[in-house]
């Protein structure tokens, strides 16, 4: 158990960097827009979706209607549908912790639980999932509250530190690439998203990308046996 704790903690270090910084940034923005610490805390605890929370600040200050808010959330967070679909099996027997694991399935947590797990035996897989989810959630809430409380006091130039998350996804991408012989899905995902980005623009390319990726992967069949 102690080893699982250590493994999980080490795995989440990149997310810690990213979440503390992005959470901090969120806290600063909330404060500068006149929101209190309690609402910042509750948002990070209960919504727990980084980019959506940044969007939410704009929605609230702009007085967006409830319908607009719901539709925007659907658009921004639709990619999470994919995480659930690919975690159905892995999270099947996680017992009482399952609702929490599903709730905490952010981009970053997904990147840590979707691939080959670090060197731990199967008995501790569930503990690993739970710990990674808890650690990540904690970093995000902590970062946000610190940002809301201390935001104005910090003068460290942190510009560019959010690149940690990009770097995280790049390493996970490479790690997955090295651990499989079937590169078609990775190539399909990358090319489709790039094409949709060029066609639809950076604000609205995610949903078309998801639809096209799902369509192509459904039709793609050649090597789907060795994967289970």
């Amino acid at each position, binding site marked *: 158990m102690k080893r699982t704790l250590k493994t999980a903690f080490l795995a989440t270090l*990149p997310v810690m*960097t990213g979440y503390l910084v992005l959470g901090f940034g969120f806290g600063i923005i909330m404060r500068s827009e006149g929101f209190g610490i309690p609402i910042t805390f509750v948002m990070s605890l209960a919504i*727990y*979706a980084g980019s*959506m929370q940044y969007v939410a600040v704009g929605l609230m200050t702009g007085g*967006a209607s*409830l319908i607009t*808010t719901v539709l925007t*959330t*659907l658009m921004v*967070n*639709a*990619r*999470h549908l*994919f*995480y*659930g*679909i*690919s*975690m*159905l*099996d892995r*999270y*099947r027997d996680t017992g009482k912790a399952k609702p929490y694991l*599903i*709730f905490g399935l952010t*981009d970053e947590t997904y*990147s840590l639980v*979707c*691939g080959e797990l670090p060197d731990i035996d199967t008995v501790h897989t569930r503990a690993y999932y739970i710990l990674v989810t808890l650690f990540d959630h904690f970093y995000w809430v902590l970062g946000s509250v610190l940002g809301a409380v201390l935001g104005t006091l910090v003068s460290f*130039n942190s*510009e*560019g*530190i959010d*690149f*940690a*998350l*990009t*770097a*995280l*996804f*790049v*390493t*996970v*991408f490479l790690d*997955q*690439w090295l651990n499989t012989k*079937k*590169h078609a*899905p*990775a190539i*399909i995902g*990358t090319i489709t*998203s*790039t094409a949709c980005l060029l066609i639809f623009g950076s604000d609205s390319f*995610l949903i078309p990308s*998801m639809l096209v*990726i799902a369509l192509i*992967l459904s039709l793609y069949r050649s090597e*789907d046996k060795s994967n289970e």
Partner: protein
Amino acid sequence: MNEAYIWLTVAAIALVTAAIRFLPFAVFNGGRKTPRLIEKLGGTLPYAIMGMLVVYCLKDMRFTAIEGFLPQLISCAVVGILYLWRRNKLLSIVTGTVCYMLLVQLVF
């Protein structure tokens, strides 16, 4: 802005976000077996999604000016090459991030 409006908006976002995350499990987790197509998607999606997330992170690159894309490309290359060489995620991420910060703060 009144308090009630703020809390209502936050509640709506929290509920919709959770609903999206729970939907696949709610639909495909009854007693019946998961359809083969969904199983197949579950096996291949992680690879495709990670590609999509990398593109998503780089979506704001602009090729109209050198500082709009070179820091990202150089830093991604640093992350990638270092990872292929040492196979250490943390080392790659920290080095790549420091490299990116130096580039955007001091060079470009």
